């Protein structure tokens, strides 16, 4: 059941090997008879494939996440003309070359294992997806090309001498054309029948970035940025193609009950779970890439001999963590979306997820995710010790910690668990605990997950203003802040307002609810309208130089709406109009996002150029804080393994849900202990391999440094983001 879990690893099978295997088996006829299974040296085939796939996925996530991360940092450095960011981006990219080869080698090994040990299954998949598999191979070549051009062309494409006007104009025209194309595509003008999420994914992650990249071209450096964007487009493309196979195994589409393709290949490719999975993986990989890079910085910091080295790696760790947290914040919502789609695909799979075989696994997951947020906050608070003046904000930490711990406790409270008759008796004959039963329900969990994110965001706000004496007048900063804050306000209003309209106009019958339940929809709509009103007030206050008050008002309204009001109201909705609960969750998410956007926009200008009590003292961090960065990396890696176990295990005893049964001797759901053993082994081997790769990278850098006469780290003048 768990075998095929990482078939969808984000990238890079050993193409030659896979190609040969594909050729050999793609003609195999699919059979409803028991499938053929083989073993290698008597090893449990499922565990072997599980281990290889998990390892391949870790490396795949790394080589997908790090370039995303590197290009973002390169763009920040390029736009701010700060060479330190550019250097940092290059340092991260240099980690990729060895990882890339290892990922490809592991992909080859995995492909060998799959094709030789599970020939019937792979024969079927290769027959069905042969076109997609060849596209995958082509994209692999594209990614290789762009990666090496990006890495080896770094110095070559550093120039800022403008290209001729003709070249610039041509690129701009092409960029505009591609952006128009993205809009046309998004609004379905081509008449392509496609799911909304797939269309958004393709528009936002492929077409639009390419168009923007073309628009930016004016010199060699901006061309390098475009190459970085193309590198990421091909990486994400590889991930999406492979995800379609994993999604298909859970939600097959376009095939009949004998496994024959009866629809188009597109249907099989764009199955229900393919895009939700891709969105979740995309964010997860970005967070993972950031944290692995952060671990690298932490190890370097711990071993650093000089203050300069410490300063450099402290800053590197901070940036890595910042990017990771940015990706981590929307991840629970992407997970919610994926879970919802799993439930819509099959209620049995959905129930089994959090209320069946995997309920305890989800409790372990809650512990891991809660730990990620708490440790991230701890890292930020530790970082405040290097900021003179931040002592003023220490008093808030205990409250934030309290909120996080309570939220964490609620999050991992199960609704119900396997109990003995004696335990039921001790709880007064009920299977629910009299008090805790409420905390195990989704409304409580939705409320606290939002509180965890708001608290983390609040920590970040405190961190940013740690050494600033006072806010700066926004009205005196020219038109840019006014425009940005107003636009952010409009975005916040658009995000929440459109959903308010949806809630106020929605027919309850759409959710199989009677007309009498319309007022529940309206109540949610009014809350969203209140959020819009708060956004208007916050923008007005910010433009009227009351930025802190604006942030306070909007944060308070959001916290009240999202955590308190909708947290409690969620129980009412659950009791009276249960199908509406998912809309409550969406409204909470939208309000939270609107809050993050507007408050961040105000914060960008509130302390811009403000008088400082002292400069950030990079490097003056405790070693403990670096271990917290390492812990974050370990935990996210373990969590990836765990979540893969759940996702894959949900299929039960099916290789392809409802189409091809797992008739092997390993057709059962392994215990949680087996899961932790397998994941731990994969994590350990991955970390050893990464340490080795980093060591190799360091060796290469030292050799390069010796050849060019460079010594030490360039650490002066590092800046915050």
């Amino acid at each position, binding site marked *: 059941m768990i075998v095929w879990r990482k078939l969808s690893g984000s990238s890079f099978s050993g193409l030659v090997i896979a190609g040969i295997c594909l050729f050999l088996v793609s003609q195999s006829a699919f059979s409803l008879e028991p499938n053929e299974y083989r073993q290698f040296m008597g090893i449990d085939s499922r565990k072997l494939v599980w281990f290889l796939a998990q390892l391949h996925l870790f490396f795949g996530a790394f080589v997908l996440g790090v370039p995303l991360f590197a290009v973002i940092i390169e763009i920040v450095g390029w736009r701010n003309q700060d060479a330190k960011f550019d250097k940092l981006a290059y340092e991260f990219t240099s980690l990729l070359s060895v990882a890339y080869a290892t990922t490809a080698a592991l992909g080859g090994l995995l492909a060998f294992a799959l094709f030789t040990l599970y020939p019937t299954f792979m024969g079927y998949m290769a027959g069905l997806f042969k076109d997609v598999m060849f596209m995958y191979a082509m994209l692999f070549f594209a990614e290789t090309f762009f990666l090496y051009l990006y890495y080896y062309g770094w110095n070559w494409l550093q120039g800022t001498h403008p290209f001729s006007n003709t070249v610039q104009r041509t690129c701009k025209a092409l960029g505009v054309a591609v952006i128009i194309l993205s809009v046309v595509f998004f609004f379905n003008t081509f008449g392509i029948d496609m799911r909304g999420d797939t269309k958004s994914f393709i528009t936002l992650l492929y077409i639009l970035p390419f168009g923007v990249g073309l628009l930016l071209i004016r010199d060699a450096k901006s061309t390098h940025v475009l190459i970085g964007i193309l590198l990421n487009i091909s990486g994400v493309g590889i991930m999406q193609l492979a995800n379609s196979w994993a999604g298909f195994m859970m939600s*097959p589409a*376009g095939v*009949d*009950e004998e496994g*024959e393709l*009866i*629809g*188009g290949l597109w*249907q099989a490719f764009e199955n229900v779970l393919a895009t939700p999975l891709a969105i979740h993986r995309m964010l997860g990989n970005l967070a993972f890439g950031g944290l692995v890079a952060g671990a690298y910085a932490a*190890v370097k910091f*711990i*071993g650093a001999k000089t203050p300069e080295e410490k300063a450099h790696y402290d800053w590197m760790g901070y940036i890595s963590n910042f990017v990771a947290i940015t990706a981590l914040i929307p991840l629970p919502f992407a997970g919610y979306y994926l879970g919802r789609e799993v439930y819509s695909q*099959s*209620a*049995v*799979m959905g*129930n*089994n997820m959090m*209320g069946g*075989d995997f309920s305890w696994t989800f409790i*372990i997951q809650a512990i891991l995710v809660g730990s990620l947020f708490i440790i991230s906050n701890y890292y930020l608070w530790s970082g405040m010790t290097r900021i003179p003046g931040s002592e003023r904000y220490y008093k808030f930490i205990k409250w934030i910690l309290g909120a996080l711990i309570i939220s964490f406790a609620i999050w991992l409270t199960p609704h*119900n*668990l*396997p*109990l*003995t*008759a004696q335990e*039921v*008796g001790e709880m007064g*004959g009920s*299977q*629910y605990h009299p008090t805790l039963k409420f905390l195990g329900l989704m409304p409580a969990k939705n409320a606290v997950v939002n509180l965890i994110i708001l608290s983390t965001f609040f920590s970040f706000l405190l961190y940013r203003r740690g050494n600033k004496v006072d806010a700066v007048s926004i009205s005196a900063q020219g038109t840019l802040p006014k425009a940005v804050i107003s636009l952010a306000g409009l975005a916040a209003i658009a995000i929440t307002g459109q959903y308010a309209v949806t809630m106020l106009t929605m027919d309850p019958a759409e959710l199989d609810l009677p007309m009498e339940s319309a007022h529940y929809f309206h109540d949610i709509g009014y809350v969203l309208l209140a959020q819009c009103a708060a956004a208007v007030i916050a923008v007005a206050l910010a433009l009227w130089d009351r930025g802190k008050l604006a942030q306070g008002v909007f944060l308070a309204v959001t916290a009240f709406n999202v955590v308190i009001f909708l947290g409690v109201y969620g129980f009412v909705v659950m009791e009276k109009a*249960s199908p509406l609960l998912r809309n409550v969750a969406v409204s909470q998410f939208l309000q939270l996002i609107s809050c993050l956007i507007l408050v961040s926009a105000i914060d960008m200008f509130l302390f811009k150029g403000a008088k400082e009590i002292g400069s950030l003292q990079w490097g003056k961090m405790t070693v403990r804080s670096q271990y917290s960065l*390492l812990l974050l990396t*370990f*935990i996210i890696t*373990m969590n990836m393994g765990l979540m893969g176990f759940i996702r894959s295990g949900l*299929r*039960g*005893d*099916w290789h392809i*849900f*409802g*189409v091809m049964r797992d008739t092997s001797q390993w*057709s*059962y*759901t*392994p*215990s*949680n*202990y*087996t*899961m*932790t053993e397998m*994941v*731990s082994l994969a*994590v*350990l081997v991955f*970390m050893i391999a990464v*340490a080795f790769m980093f060591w190799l990278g360091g060796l290469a850098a030292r050799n390069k440094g010796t050849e060019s006469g460079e010594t030490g780290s360039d650490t002066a003048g590092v800046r915050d983001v």
Partner: protein
Amino acid sequence: MSKTVLKVFVVLLVVLGAYMWVGYAITEMTGGEKKASGIVEISPEGGEQIFWGKGRCFTCHSMGGQGSAVRCPNLGQFGEKFPLPIGARAVERAKERSEETGIDYSATDYLVESLAKPDAYIVDTFKNEMAIVYAPPISLNLKEIKAVVAYLQSQGGEVDIDTIEQPSEVAVQYYDRIAAASAAGGGDPGNGEEMFVDTCSDCHQLNGEGGEVGPDLSTIGDKGLKFITESILRPAKKITPGYETYVVVDAEGIKTIGLKSQETGAEVEITKATGEVVTINKSDIKEIEIDEGASVMPDDLTEALTVKDFQDVLAYMMMQKSEGEQQ
């Protein structure tokens, strides 16, 4: 640096050790691997294994103090709401059901109905969240479902294997439903019926309802799964006599393709796939012939169906049998 790396790996090992310890502790408490059982013996023991294993009934139902699921009614004696275990409760529920429908229900009929068509008679304050147990991923076969019925009867009721094996008129329709669904790869005939009404009934009749463009499907189940599957996937492969596709070309060269629904001495009436009826004077016809490689039935129909929809329709079609073919 090597010392640092060593320290880091010690931390990693501690973290992984804690992780495995949590996994171990949970497994000790909740049991190990979950293997689907393949019991087919129709007995309370066989049913118990299905209930707590392959059938996944425990995900939503508890049995008194055993289990912890609360999504659906507790099937044991539990609190004020459930004073009787399901075996005894089924007798009461069957009486209520008989009063409601005017059809005589036995306890066995009630239990069979609850498993085969859970939305038929829902327990107050609960909603129908039960999965179709004979569809994937659970995919119980008829024998396994009968075993579960025996197990439920054993909970405070009388186990009556004879009634299970020789079903009443009420139960037999559900047995047909389950058998049809199993044969069709585990489709849900209820959903299949809806799909049929939405997609097929404009052209096909079923028990006197529906269009007349295509053949009447009231006894299509007699022809077997393979025939039905092929007829949906490749409708042109074998066309029912009388439903051949005609291509008529008139004097102006205009082609009309469809069924020859009527023919008189002077006119030919062609019914197109859209349902539109075109009457053509024989004197205007330049050419008329049967296209053996084509069917009026859309051959891209399956593109609009998911695997589940397809299986559901198949299951519903498999249930459409003539009197003689019914069990």
